[in-house]
């Protein structure tokens, strides 16, 4: 399952997500971690350290405040509440489109060109990659079939991206002769 996990490892703003979770009411750090893991963690739960370092950053920036401290508690017993500035920050984050990532296949492109330059089998490199992509797509499809709606949506996101890569691999395979001529020109 390590490969599946790898697909999820996109950049997620943990700070904004925790802030958003606080909008429904003040919570302890432990509750925040549990809510995050349940809704977004999948098989990649947050570490306690991540929660507390994120909360102290949010506190420093005035996006959350300490709503109360349980008697006898250390810093981990703090209850956090979102501030007006925090609510504005979440709203701004939600309304800002994510930067579309061009996913330039630079490593693969380099491998293909190098293979052509050194008279190796470039089609073989593309097929090996294609096979690896489909192997992961099969694992995700299987997981999707057995999972709940959240699993399906997450796996679909990964599957559509992998499919796009595969289309690039196919198109490049079909253009190898042309590319070989340019490389050797």
């Amino acid at each position, binding site marked *: 399952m390590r490969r599946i996990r790898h697909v999820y490892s996109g950049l997620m703003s943990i700070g904004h997500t925790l802030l958003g979770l606080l909008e429904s009411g003040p919570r302890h750090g432990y509750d925040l971690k549990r809510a995050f893991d349940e809704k977004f963690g999948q098989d990649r739960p947050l570490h306690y350290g991540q929660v507390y370092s994120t909360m102290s950053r949010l506190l420093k920036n005035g996006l959350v405040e300490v709503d109360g401290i349980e008697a006898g508690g250390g810093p981990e017993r703090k209850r956090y509440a979102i501030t007006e500035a925090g609510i504005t920050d979440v709203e701004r984050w939600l309304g800002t489109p994510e930067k579309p990532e061009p996913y330039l296949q630079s490593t693969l492109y380099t491998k293909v060109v190098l293979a052509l330059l050194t008279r190796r089998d470039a089609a*073989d490199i593309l*097929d*090996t990659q*294609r*096979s*690896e*992509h*489909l192997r992961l*797509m*099969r694992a*995700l*499809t299987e997981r999707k*079939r057995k999972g709940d709606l959240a699993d399906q949506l997450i796996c679909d996101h990964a*599957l*559509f991206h*992998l*499919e796009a890569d*595969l*289309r690039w691999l*196919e198109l490049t*395979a*079909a253009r190898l002769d042309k590319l070989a001529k340019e490389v050797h020109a």
Partner: protein
Amino acid sequence: MSIPEGSLLAAHDLHKAYGPTNALDGAAFSIHPGEVVAVMGPSGSGKSTLLHCLAGIVTPDSGTIMYNGHELSAMNDADRSALRRTDFGFVFQFGQLVPELSCLENVALPLRLNGTGRKQAESTALTWMQRLEVENVAKQRPGEVSGGQGQRVAVARSLVTGPRVLFADEPTGALDSLNGERVMELLTDAARSAGAAVVLVTHEARVAAYSDREVVVRDGKSRDMERVV
């Protein structure tokens, strides 16, 4: 000739030309009982010709096709037709249901053609429609149901005779993503539980991801991707 051990259907060194065009140029293929194999490749690569040869619809110019220990390529037309009716099932992209018949009658049709009585045929057909979750459109005609429902009716019809091999040529090609995926889930579940092997021709990777392995056809030549890495 190399036929993988235990394979139900296997082809070796197939050649087929349409005029000056080599549709198949030494293609090979094999599938085991209960296995789902995706046949992928660009348009015009020869993947549909390969499927038609494997199903005994098209006769290759040369090469061997073995089905369950018999040489398909050496059978006469009548024997191949009989085999298609009893052992093979087919699902295409569209245009496969008889518009004048109800969906239930469509699903029961292959059984009726094989001589099964109406009551028995329709009872078996209804069981398959339930498996494909389309029993609610049993009385409707194909023109009155959605594309996704129609395709599930077609899948039910293809499996109603208990085929050992199901040939599916772009079975989700005319459907949107959501309906296409549901058809693939139900098709592969139904085929697996019935122990049928599925030859799945598709150009969509997300559809191919429902298979156990893939064979890529390019310029009439095939490559088993399991042996790539």
